[in-house]
């Protein structure tokens, strides 16, 4: 028999009964309807138990049918910890229960519950952390028992995405307040988005009872939802969770695989309330559920949750539940009303008229379980003597379900994230939310309103204010009194000598655990949470925060208001990392010649955001390839892509003065057609960049920067001139230009074939000269610079002509054997020449004196950034110098960057660069060492890989061509 507990229409608002859906749960086949959740479809087939509890392995069924508790966590094939009362069934879905050994019905680990008294709060902290190291051993066993669900490692990635949304007003929650608010906000012209985590609009109007004959909610729902659906200015998103509130009304809305980053002018939180369980022995048994949960499963899913009910009421809502159950053909055996002398409303009076037995001033002292705690069998009802205390006069009433209607907590989480303060009136058991920003307000029951007409009026009123963004009125309204009423019974907590009165179902925490945490000295609510783990489970204290606060308040002789609740941080509900990650974005920069490198067999690497060729050839021949590239530059001619270098045009009458202030050198008297080394320091005197400054004409300098620093140098320059107001323009032309460096003794020969309008003779175009002409008929800036220490020309052309330039140069040099070289070869070549790389051979503290660059500092000019500090540093005692060294033993392992220079156990410095030099046929490098061993002839020890000590001799820089003959050829 299937769907034997299903009720006929109109029950089952969410169901499409024409579409049957077959699925399996723990290997058994079930059928439900489209629109069912896993939990509702199982309940319709009589399967109530969904999981075993985290600690004691007790059977658990859905408590809320609203996806708000962890009792309903199940395993989907590629998704552990899915909420069975939220997850829809889909055809052939294979669901398994979690956290049992053996079977869900007969869990071999259920014995743990019987030793609960030996597992007091803080047990793990106290039992397994001594002696030192014990946890490492214990954790292996404990971890096996802890944790829920299984990760599917074979899971195929899915496409998750993000999207921005913008609205004048976003209404969170589509119950009566939210729907009313959306309509009135849209009516005054605002663009409105209304979202709800459920599959349809309506909120409590879909299941609650607000009148005796049970028709009013349906009428209101149809009227409000159709008005919202028809409204041109309202967008609707259902099945959507607002998982947090962030600054300036920034809301992450999750729907399916997409995260909507939503910016709202005004936010209205109509998030409603969450019903709370009563705390008594065995309050976790399957069959014990919230009154609203019974109403949800009846009305939304058409499932009869039992046949013989007892209702525990602390308010009149319990009587509405009774009427709903009676209408559905469920026998209501008894209503246990905690109140001594309740004020009955129309609904409760109707229940009395039905002749239902009602016991006032009574409590459920304990629920009584069937074998193995699998279901509720009866309740032990006793008179209340005082708060939480019952007399011994017990009456056992048989039942197969128990509905709890004892009070509600506002869904305050988003409001508190927005800055709202949650207060509690201990006298009246009423919550209030105050202190909200003017552009984020609460409406409806979350604001403490209970009467349906008040809720709708409040929604309409605030909706209109939000729609017109009338902050003056909003401010005024927050000072007016609202008709706040309470449905909360003040103390629905009944300790039992045998325990198992669960405060937190996620973590299996009982009354004694909270009380003992306080007695152990953790008196603050935040400490109680961390010590006991109360509220740290998947439901994040949604059903335990109030009870915990009440217990802690009582134990510490404070009010609940003083005790408060723990901070509510985003995310509100569990979210996947994939939602946070979204699509993968890896912005990468390519020069115009990029594909020519690939075609030439280059191994590309990431240099900052750029792709650059490391070397050309297969990976197994890396060393040979790099060496061949080095030798070809030294002996013939090579070509390297230098497009990644930054380029800045500095133009205007003050261009020279500006450079004078920005760089350490002097530039005012720099001749046109000449380039000059440019070293940049910051105000602490540390080196931050270098390049060459080329003077193209009186008012125009072209400055290069290191790869990766173009933006920061550019921004730094703009910031300085925002203060100086010099008559100068600073433009970043990095990507406008693409460049190559043709280097080697045959460089001029190659360039002559490409360039006829510039006199390339050594005398007329000397080292450090710059010329403007054409290369391969492409307009070009040609600079005679030599980072690698050979005759070389850097040719900068418009970016889109880069590939054409490359082709022309390769073609022109082919007869000579021109070959491309990558940055690996370039690093060796520049090291042989003793040129430093900023950021590799310098750190955030390196000043020019330390790296032997005093020569790059102008002593004549009055000011440059960092100048004053450098004066101070020069007077201070030097602590280190960057020196060149040669590894003494040719067989020694290659020292690596950042390996230490040591003297026995004392750290003296570190290696910054080290390579085998094919040209010099020895290993050379740069290292920071103390002044005492910084002069040529001194020696030091490097602690190499594996602790090998490597002897090194300090030598004069550069290693190669100290007379600079090669680059001036």
């Amino acid at each position, binding site marked *: 028999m299937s769907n034997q507990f299903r009720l006929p229409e109109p029950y089952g608002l969410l169901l499409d009964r024409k579409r049957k859906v077959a699925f399996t749960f723990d290997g058994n086949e079930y059928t439900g309807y489209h629109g069912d959740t896993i939990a509702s479809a199982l309940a319709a087939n009589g399967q109530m138990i969904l999981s075993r509890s985290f600690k004691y392995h007790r059977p658990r069924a859905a408590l809320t049918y609203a996806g708000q508790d962890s009792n309903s966590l199940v395993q989907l094939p590629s998704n552990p910890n899915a909420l069975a009362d939220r997850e829809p069934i889909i055809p052939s879905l294979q669901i398994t229960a979690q956290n049992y050994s053996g079977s869900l019905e007969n869990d071999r680990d259920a014995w743990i519950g019987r030793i609960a008294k030996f597992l007091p709060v803080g047990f793990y902290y106290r039992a397994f952390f001594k002696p030192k190291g014990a946890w490492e051993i214990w954790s292996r066993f404990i971890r096996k028992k802890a944790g829920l669900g299984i990760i599917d490692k074979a899971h195929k990635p899915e496409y998750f995405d993000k999207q921005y949304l913008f609205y004048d007003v976003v209404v969170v929650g589509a119950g009566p307040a939210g729907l009313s608010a959306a309509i009135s906000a849209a009516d005054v012209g605002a663009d409105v988005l209304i979202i709800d985590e459920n599959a349809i609009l309506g909120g409590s109007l879909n299941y609650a009872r607000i009148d005796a004959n049970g028709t009013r909610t349906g009428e209101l729902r149809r009227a409000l939802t159709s008005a919202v659906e028809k409204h041109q200015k309202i967008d609707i998103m259902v099945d959507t969770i607002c998982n947090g509130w962030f600054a*300036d009304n*920034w809301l992450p809305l999750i729907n399916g695989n997409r995260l909507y980053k939503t910016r709202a002018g005004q936010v209205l939180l109509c998030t409603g309330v969450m019903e709370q369980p009563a705390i008594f022995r065995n309050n976790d048994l399957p069959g014990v559920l919230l009154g609203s949960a019974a109403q949800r499963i009846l009305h939304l899913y058409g499932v009869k949750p039992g046949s013989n009910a007892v209702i525990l009421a602390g308010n009149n809502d319990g009587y509405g539940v009774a009427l709903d159950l009676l209408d559905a053909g469920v026998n209501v055996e008894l209503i246990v009303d905690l109140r001594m002398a309740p004020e009955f409303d129309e609904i409760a009076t109707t229940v009395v008229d039905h002749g239902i037995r009602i016991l006032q001033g009574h409590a459920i002292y304990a629920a009584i379980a069937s074998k193995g705690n699998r279901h509720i069998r009866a309740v032990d009802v006793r008179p209340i003597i005082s708060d939480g205390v019952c007399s011994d006069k017990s009456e056992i009433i048989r039942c197969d379900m128990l509905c709890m209607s004892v009070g509600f907590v506002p869904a305050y989480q988003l409001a508190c994230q927005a800055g709202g303060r949650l207060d509690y009136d201990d006298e009246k058991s009423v919550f209030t939310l105050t202190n909200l920003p003017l552009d984020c307000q609460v409406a409806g029951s979350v604001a403490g309103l209970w009467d349906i007409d008040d809720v709708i009026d409040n929604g309409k009123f605030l909706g209109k204010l939000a729609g017109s963004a009338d902050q003056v009125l909003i401010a005024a309204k927050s000072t007016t009194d609202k008709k706040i009423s309470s449905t909360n019974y003040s103390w629905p907590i009944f300790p039992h000598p045998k325990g198992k009165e669960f405060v937190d179902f996620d973590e299996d925490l009982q009354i004694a655990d909270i009380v003992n945490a306080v007695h152990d000295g953790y008196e603050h609510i935040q400490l109680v949470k961390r010590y006991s783990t109360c509220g740290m489970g998947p439901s994040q204290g949604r059903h335990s925060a109030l009870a915990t606060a009440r217990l802690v308040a009582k134990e510490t002789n404070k009010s609940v208001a003083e005790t408060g609740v723990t901070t509510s941080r985003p995310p509100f509900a569990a979210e996947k990392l994939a939602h946070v990650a979204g699509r993968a974005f890896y912005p990468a920069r390519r020069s115009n010649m990029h594909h020519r490198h690939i075609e030439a067999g280059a191994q590309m690497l990431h240099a900052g955001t750029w792709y650059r060729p490391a070397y050309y050839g297969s990976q197994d021949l890396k060393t040979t390839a790099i060496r061949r590239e080095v030798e070809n530059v030294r002996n013939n001619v090579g070509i390297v892509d230098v497009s990644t270098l930054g380029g800045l045009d500095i133009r205007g009458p003050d261009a020279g003065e500006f450079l004078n202030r920005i760089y350490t050198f002097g530039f005012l008297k720099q001749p046109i057609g000449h380039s000059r080394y440019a070293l940049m320091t910051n105000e602490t005197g540390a080196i931050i960049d270098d390049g060459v400054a080329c003077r193209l004409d009186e008012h125009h300098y072209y400055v290069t920067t290191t790869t990766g620093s173009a933006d920061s140098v550019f*921004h730094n320059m*703009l910031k300085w001139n925002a203060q100086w*107001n010099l008559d100068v323009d600073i433009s970043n032309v990095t990507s406008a230009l693409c460049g190559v460096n043709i280097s080697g003794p045959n460089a001029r020969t190659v360039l002559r074939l490409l360039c006829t309008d510039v006199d390339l003779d050594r005398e007329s175009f000397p080292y450090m000269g710059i010329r403007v002409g054409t290369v391969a008929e492409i307009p070009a800036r040609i600079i005679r610079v030599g980072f690698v220490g050979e005759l070389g020309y850097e040719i900068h052309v418009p970016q889109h002509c880069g590939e054409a330039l490359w082709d022309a140069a390769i073609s022109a040099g082919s007869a000579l054997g021109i070959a491309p070289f990558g940055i690996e070869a370039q690093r060796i070549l520049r090291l042989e020449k003793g040129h430093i790389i900023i950021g590799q051979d310098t750190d955030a503290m390196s000043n020019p004196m330390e790296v032997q660059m005093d020569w790059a500092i102008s002593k004549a000019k*009055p000011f440059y950034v960092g100048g004053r*500090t450098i004066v101070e540093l020069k007077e201070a005692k030097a602590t280190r110098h960057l020196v060149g060294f040669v590894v003494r033993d040719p067989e020694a392992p290659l020292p690596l960057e950042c390996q230490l220079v040591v003297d026995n156990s004392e750290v003296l410095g570190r290696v910054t660069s080290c390579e085998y030099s094919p040209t010099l046929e020895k290993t050379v490098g740069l290292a920071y060492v103390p002044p005492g061993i910084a002069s040529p002839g001194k020696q030091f020890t490097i602690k190499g890989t594996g602790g090998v000590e490597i002897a090194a001799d300090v030598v004069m820089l550069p290693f190669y061509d100290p007379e600079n003959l090669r680059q001036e050829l």
Partner: protein
Amino acid sequence: MKLLNCPLNGPRNIAEFSYGGELHTMPNPTMCDSREWAEYVFFDRNEAGVVTEWWMHNASAYWFLAERNTITDEVVRTFPASEMFTERVDSINADKA
């Protein structure tokens, strides 16, 4: 995410901006003593209250100033740097002779 009102581009997500540090006034680098200079280079006032800060809108490389309350994180005002720096600084040595 917080919004910041760029004087050139209007209100934008704060992720579109770079922080440029507190606004400091440089003492005369040739006249001031070492302590004064060191405090200028290394110390932020780090006040609890309204401070003036440099911010840059990344996409337009536009620097501006913001007055921000460090207690509430409220940005009181943003304005172009030209409102504060109106004159050409001819000589950094002469400004405090």
